């Protein structure tokens, strides 16, 4: 299945802004996150098709996955 992955902020450094790739059916968010080698402590929010999601959510064909760094403070 095809999934679009969007990275926000510092996650883009040495990676990409947006990438469409093929993944096996049943792939979970966590598996893509692990492949990207982003430190877990830096992950703030996961969006799946614009809605808040969890690392153990399963992806489907045509999904857009967005990974955001932690937000907080000013």
């Amino acid at each position, binding site marked *: 299945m095809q999934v679009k992955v969007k990275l*926000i*902020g*510092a996650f*883009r*450094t040495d990676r990409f802004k947006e990438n469409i790739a093929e993944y096996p059916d049943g792939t979970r968010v966590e598996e893509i996150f692990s492949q990207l080698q982003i*430190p877990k*402590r*830096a992950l*703030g*929010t996961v*969006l799946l098709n*614009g*809605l*808040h999601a969890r690392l153990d959510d399963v992806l489907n064909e045509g999904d857009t996955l*967005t990974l*955001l*760094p*932690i*937000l*907080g*403070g*000013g």
Partner: protein
Amino acid sequence: MKSLTTDPAANPAAILYHRCTVDLKTGELRYTDVPCRNLEDVLGGFGRSFQDLAMRQIDNAYCDENPLIVNTGLLTGSTAMTALRTYFSGYSPIKGSKAGRPAAMWSTGSGKFGAKFKWTGLDELIFENRSEQPVYVLIKETVAGPQVELKPAEHLLGLSTHAKIMALQQEYPNAHFAAIGPAGENWQQNYMGAVALSTENQLKSKQDKCRFAGRGGMGSLMGYKNILALVAQSRDKLGKVSEAVKKVNLNVIKGGGSARLQPISRGGGGGTWAAYDVLQAFHAVPVNNFRPQGNAIPEKLFRENVEKEYDIKSEACYRCGITCHNNISEKGADGSKGEFLAKFDYEPLNLLGTNLGIHAAGEAARLIQLADNYGMDSISLGVTISYLLAYNERHPEKPILNGATFGDYEKIRELVIKAGEGELPEIGRGSMRLSQATGETGYAYHVKGLELPAYQPETNPGYAWAIAGGHMSMATYGLLTREGKSDLDSWVKGITQNKLHMVGFDMIGLCKFFDIANGIGTQMVVDCLKSEFNLEVSTDDIRAAVRRAFLRGLALELRQGYTKAEFCLPAEVSEDPNSHINLPNITSSEFIAQLEKRVWEIFEPELEGILD
């Protein structure tokens, strides 16, 4: 601080803090060792000062009976990382109820002044009345204990915050400083004066790299009292770092809480500036007076775009490993670093940049620099100006003041300068008063008279219960955006249980970035108190003390005449919902009404008798 117990929760009176009370009218000084009333007193900061403010009925911030309380937290000046906080408390000139009475307020900043102050041997300074002549206050360590002196300060009048500090450094090379700018000197016309706190970096580089206790106009109160600066002169007394504190400090750096603040080169998020990227994913970056347009305009101030033209350097506070600052300098054609401009933190950058329609980094940096040099709270300043620009946009036929509109840098710059010089009370007295004067209050972005930070109110109805300005006294700003919580139960729990604990950092002397998600009721803090002072305190005791301190703040607001109807977001939020923000709507009238009902049902019984 004298400690005659290891159990301050059970026996707070056996902990005594050292206070100097200064009568500015007579010059009389009184030194006392004050026994603590409760654990809030022991922890310090606003936990202590608000109990003292509650003992006074103040109807006007600019009166002799309104004290300026300068104190530290228990851990200020300790080996715990980030322990640099100084607190300034008093009844605020800018934050006040519609009944016309000022709210109790505190403001805090880092820099090294707090540690130096603590190392003089003093824990608290209370300024009573006001001085006839401008003075600065020298607090020095002597063999006989801390000594306080009032010194003539005419030579400092009119200088910027940075210039005052540089002038005083010539005279006191081993000291650190807290200074107001021209805005605080012009307290009659400017209620948003900040207090600048010197940093090691500033004193060494001679560049204007102060930190600020900005909120609530404590610099204006200091100006009213005719105090232009404080000088803390002592030896550095940082003790050897114990194994227990080393472990805590390592956790502060490596733990999740500070991850987003570490430099990008270390795998971090790159400081608070990174909020731009995250909030833009939801089209929730404030634009043109808090009206995001669903477009890419905020991206112009993304770091990746700014660093093409400017030099960005990550720097840290004294002994702090978080390294959260992003200092921006001009970049020469050959790539060399030029003049230092400003520190790009999310709030000032947005509120003096994108939210004014300013999208050029250099222009935003110059506005931040001006606000800092004049000693004005960049949040109150930016939001008051954005209100004015919104008014002028709505009334092109009859604009007010200099007719500035969104994006008009030169005219906005003029507003900042004139406000700082005390020539524009319409700006200097804040958005609540300006909007009352125009009669258009619905799009003035303040809550309870204090301007909102750069998080859309649509994402944070918790602002209404913040006691010293959201977002730093109510940590619900990420509950919807980060955590995705849009149900009533989560918001009631967030406001009344978990997120209010952020204010604990404004008691104990630590920066919020020590552990922003968890507050101070943690094993890390327990370990620091045991190691530094041999105090045995439980996390439950700490959390209970923080909750009492927070509730005391709420009770004080009600006592100062706030009605429950004033605990509300700007009307525009629910009357004209912004469909561009890609998040569930949690600010409808119905949702807010339910939230208010349930939050007050929990808070109200606890408020009874809390000020007695």
